[in-house]
């Protein structure tokens, strides 16, 4: 028995998945591989010569790597919670978005943790995290949290794609090479569209979605507690848990919008990612953005007003244009106001501008993570009194930039490759629901 979807229209729209990729696509992949190669060379240097090749020193012991770590995990967590939330509440326009968001969830969760490994001085002893695990340490909480979460995120994505794999396996219209058919055959795990199979998939997905929503809240908080549990100004704050949860989902919503825009352009998916999808996601973006803005304001206002010695030293650095003032303005003012402005005026509510606002959100949230990590570490409770500039201020070296670039390149590479193996639109689910006109 062959599993077929009813709508030939959807299959036709997505038939590019079986076509050979264009030259442009290949050059994009080669470009990404080049970036990763540069990163690999930087990694080799860092392993061969030690962490001395980075800008990190005894005071600023964590730098841009940790900022990237939080950034990618934030995107990932957002992908997972948005996918799960939309699924649970059966948001009518969810279908095309859930696939992208679960993809971002999985890929972010693969790329993010690599950056924490880059901070570890003794990678040869990494297994100590398991054999000598000490449950009191927030890092161990994070190890357990992230590894549990990756499994859940992969399962949630996979369960959503099984039906499509079955279509690819059986479709005579789509021209796949033999090995790809074999791959789809394997991945479809004998899905035949039987009623009981459908029920199993639905039940498991529902269950996973129910687990994922609170799980993301918990693991984002755990991530924040790596900072919140210390006695350092700017970190030791009760707001940090919920703050990280909101910041993660806020940035990830931006990432989903940008991905929607790129895929819509690249594969001509205007029918699936409609202008309304962009507006709806824009609404999600400003709801989260205002919440995030409120937290930001509350966080900085309280520490500035009470003006505890260390807090005010930190705030002074953050506001001073000669230190972090410009970055502070971009991340805490522009990153919050621009999406609001774009969404408030009806004329501005176009897919292009909403995407642009999302790009600004992503940039400012990356900067925000840098501003969380570095200035606090530069604000020691006992004066540093050192004349070596690298002990006073952190500035990333090319090695760190190269590895950051490689991290972003891997993220794009994985997404690009994934979009060639599975359609970015869940075709069978859309077909089950009666074609494109799902509203």
């Amino acid at each position, binding site marked *: 028995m062959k599993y077929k979807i009813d709508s030939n229209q959807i299959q036709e729209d997505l038939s590019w998945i079986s076509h050979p990729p264009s030259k442009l696509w290949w050059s994009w992949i080669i470009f990404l591989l080049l970036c990763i190669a540069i990163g690999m060379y930087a990694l080799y240097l860092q392993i061969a*010569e*030690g*962490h*001395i090749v980075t800008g*990190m*020193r*005894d*005071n600023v*012991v*964590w730098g841009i790597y940790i900022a990237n770590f939080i950034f990618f995990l934030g995107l990932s967590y957002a992908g997972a919670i948005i996918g799960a939330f939309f699924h649970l509440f059966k948001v009518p326009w969810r279908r095309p978005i859930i696939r992208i968001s679960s993809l971002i969830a999985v890929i972010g969760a693969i790329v993010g943790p690599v950056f924490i490994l880059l*901070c*570890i*001085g*003794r990678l040869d*002893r*990494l297994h*100590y*995290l398991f054999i*000598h*695990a*000490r449950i*009191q*340490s*927030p*890092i*161990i909480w994070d*190890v357990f949290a992230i590894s549990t979460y990756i499994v859940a995120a992969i399962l949630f994505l996979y369960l959503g794609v099984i039906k499509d794999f079955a279509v690819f396996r059986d479709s005579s219209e789509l021209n796949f090479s033999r090995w790809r058919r074999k791959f789809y055959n394997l991945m479809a795990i004998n899905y035949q569209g039987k009623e009981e199979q459908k029920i199993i998939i639905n039940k498991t997905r529902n269950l996973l979605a129910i687990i994922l929503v609170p799980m993301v809240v918990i693991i984002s908080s755990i991530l924040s507690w*790596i900072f919140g*549990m*210390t*006695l*350092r100004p700017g970190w030791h704050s009760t707001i940090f848990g919920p703050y990280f949860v909101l910041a993660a989902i806020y940035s990830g919503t931006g990432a989903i919008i940008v991905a929607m825009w790129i895929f819509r352009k690249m594969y001509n998916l205007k029918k699936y990612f409609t202008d309304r999808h962009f507006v709806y996601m824009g609404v999600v973006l400003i709801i989260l953005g205002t919440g995030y803005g409120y937290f930001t304001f509350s966080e900085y206002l309280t520490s500035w007003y009470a003006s505890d010695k260390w807090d005010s030293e930190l705030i002074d650095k953050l506001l001073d244009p000669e230190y972090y003032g410009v970055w502070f303005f971009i991340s805490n003012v522009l990153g919050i106001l621009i999406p609001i402005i774009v969404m408030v005026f009806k004329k501005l509510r176009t897919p292009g501008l909403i995407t642009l606002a999302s790009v600004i959100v992503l940039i400012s949230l990356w900067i925000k993570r840098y501003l969380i990590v570095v200035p606090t*570490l530069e604000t*020691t*409770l*006992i*004066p*540093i*009194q*050192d*004349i*070596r500039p690298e002990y006073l201020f952190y500035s990333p070296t090319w090695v760190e930039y190269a590895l950051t670039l490689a991290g972003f390149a891997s993220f794009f590479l994985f997404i690009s490759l994934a979009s060639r193996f599975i359609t970015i639109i869940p075709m069978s689910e859309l077909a089950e629901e009666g074609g494109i006109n799902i509203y």
Partner: protein
Amino acid sequence: MKSEKCGCSGPSRRDFLKTGVVALCGAAACGCSGGSNLLKEEEKIKLLSPDGELIEVARSQIGPAVPPVGKLEAREGIPGRKFVMVIDLAKCNNARKCITSCQKMHYSPSDVEWLQVKLMKDNDQASPYWFPKTCFHCDNPPCVKVCPVDATYKRSDGLVLIDNDRCIGCKFCMAACPYSTRVFNWTEPELSEEAKMCSYSPEASVPAQEGTVEKCDFCPDMARLGELPDCVTSCPNGVFYFGDENEDTVTNGEETVRFSQLIKDKAGYRYMEELGTKPRVYYLPPTDRIFPVERGLENVESDPLREMFKDIIDGSPTI
């Protein structure tokens, strides 16, 4: 106190420990603080050095070899002890002997300071003072809480130590320590031949390992021999008092005093008590100082750093 103390006794002793050869201070180790003993004619004894050479060593320099304690023992602590340190800020003139002797003892390069002397000024009106800072070996240590692999731990005798064979180098303890006590080996440490020969124990913290965290350890290996840490004995002004809270006694090598009485009489305090870390290091306030603070500038070798300190002394910037 051992009378034949010589500035280099630490290193030599440590390297001989490994091979089990008996000796405290090699004759080659000389030129140090009070080397007068070495100049006296004494009975020499022939010994086989670790390199297989026959050497002659004065009888007074020889003592029983003590092997470093094992990993498990180094986690337990010395039974019945509760180490404590008192630092008298009225006596410090930034002589920096504590720093250099500590570096020598642990074979650290000159830019790695487990012990630092800061110039502090509490407010605009207050006059500045020199502030030696060791690891505080907190009773509620923020660093130990966060270690994911139990590489840094608290012992029954109050010490916070690091097992460098266990440390994975995540640096979380460094971020968590509010006193910036810990240092990281950012690259392969350049070890002297002697340092390489030492067998590692968390009590001796030698040799250093790349990609791991290290810090002041209060020299428990010295305590096991009944000796004081080198920072205490090398200080020309008797700033550091080291001792046992259980015995209620601390000594700076010259005078031995009741710990509780000293704290009561001189209004001893712990730095940043409000953090709740419960340090095991107490400070005596810098009142009735025996040196003008400017004296400390003489020992600052780097010009820019001296300028920086001068600005703090002359100017108003509160730190």
